[in-house]
């Protein structure tokens, strides 16, 4: 059952980003259906195992417009969530980031913050993107903290844009330019 390697693609401190694993399809489905997880990730329709299988089908785009990771907890050796760089616009060099921590016991441990940081670095230094976005529900305080900690700026608010649990919420559009990210990184090094 246990694999010899977990195929670390990007190494972090608490977590690694690894490729999706088709043996974890049930886990992905579990996370995306979990009421506590899905509420802000905006999974309004039940997610089937078949839906998860789509991630493993060859893409019809020759040039990827979406890149998925599994978030792997290093100490407990467990997959705990997924991250995505989506809507990649190769002309304008922009994309959106998204992530879920599917196992609530790992919430509040700055894992989202680290995963965001790793994906930001990947998007800028490996994909050569220019600007990245994150759309976050106004009530999802944990997520905007995690964006702000990584230097994202709240660039726009889409008023009453998302209907969650019987109420409309604003969507905050966070963004980060590569140039600003580089500046921040330099400042951190000086400190």
């Amino acid at each position, binding site marked *: 059952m246990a694999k010899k390697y977990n195929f670390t693609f990007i190494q972090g401190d608490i977590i690694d980003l690894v490729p999706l694993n088709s043996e974890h399809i049930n886990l992905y489905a579990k996370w995306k259906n979990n009421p506590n997880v899905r509420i802000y990730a905006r999974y309004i329709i039940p997610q089937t195992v078949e839906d998860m299988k789509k991630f493993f089908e060859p893409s019809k785009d020759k040039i990827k417009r979406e890149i998925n990771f599994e978030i792997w907890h290093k100490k407990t050796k467990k997959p705990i969530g997924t991250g995505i760089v989506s809507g990649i616009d*190769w002309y304008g060099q922009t994309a959106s980031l998204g992530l879920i921590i599917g196992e609530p016991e790992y919430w509040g441990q700055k894992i989202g913050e680290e995963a965001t940081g790793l994906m930001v670095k990947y998007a800028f230094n490996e994909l050569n993107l220019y600007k990245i976005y994150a759309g976050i529900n106004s009530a999802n305080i944990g997520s905007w903290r995690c964006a702000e900690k990584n230097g994202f700026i709240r660039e726009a608010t889409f008023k009453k844009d998302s209907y969650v649990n019987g109420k409309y919420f604003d969507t905050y559009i966070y963004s980060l330019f590569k140039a600003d990210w580089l500046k921040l990184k330099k400042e951190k090094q000086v400190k």
Partner: protein
Amino acid sequence: MPDENSQEEIEVFPFIEGKIIDLVAPNSKWAELKCKWRNDPKVRQYSRNMWPRSLDDVKKSFETVPDGHRHTREHVGFIIYHKRDKRPIGDIGLNHIDWVSRNANIFAEIGEPEYWGKGIVGEAAQLVLKYAFTELNLHKIKAGVFTPNERSQRAAEKLGLNKEAVVKEAMYVDGKYHDIHKWGLTKEEWLKKNKILIHID
């Protein structure tokens, strides 16, 4: 004598306007014409088409991509349309687009030999360079030309491309191995050179 295919009235859609020529969107009604260019021994010798192309092969290049204009392409092609003579005379474009390293290869072919030696490729390529740098936001444009193709070597030089390397005996054409000359130009160099051109104008 004008080609019989071009006599048919086909509505053209200029995408980039030039002086002598426009770069227009390909039209599947030109498939036969394109097929003629691809197979013409005089033309293909320089564009290195080693295989006979069937009309079906050429028609395939007009098939739409799965996701329309949102689809990220590795290839962008135009038809070179002669404005005064009102006829398509060749094609030009970018292929092998690498969106991460942001470079691409420029290719061009004048399929009607009577238009050779008139600086048409120069004008068309200048338009494609501008498109590549200011619309696609690419970082570098490359071109590979093999030794006997002197016209293209001159065109590359005139365009302001830098000769970066010569790859020895990399291409077998007409019974002999030939060197390939690798040309390249970065956006920064292009911007600099272009400003100078504007001043002279």
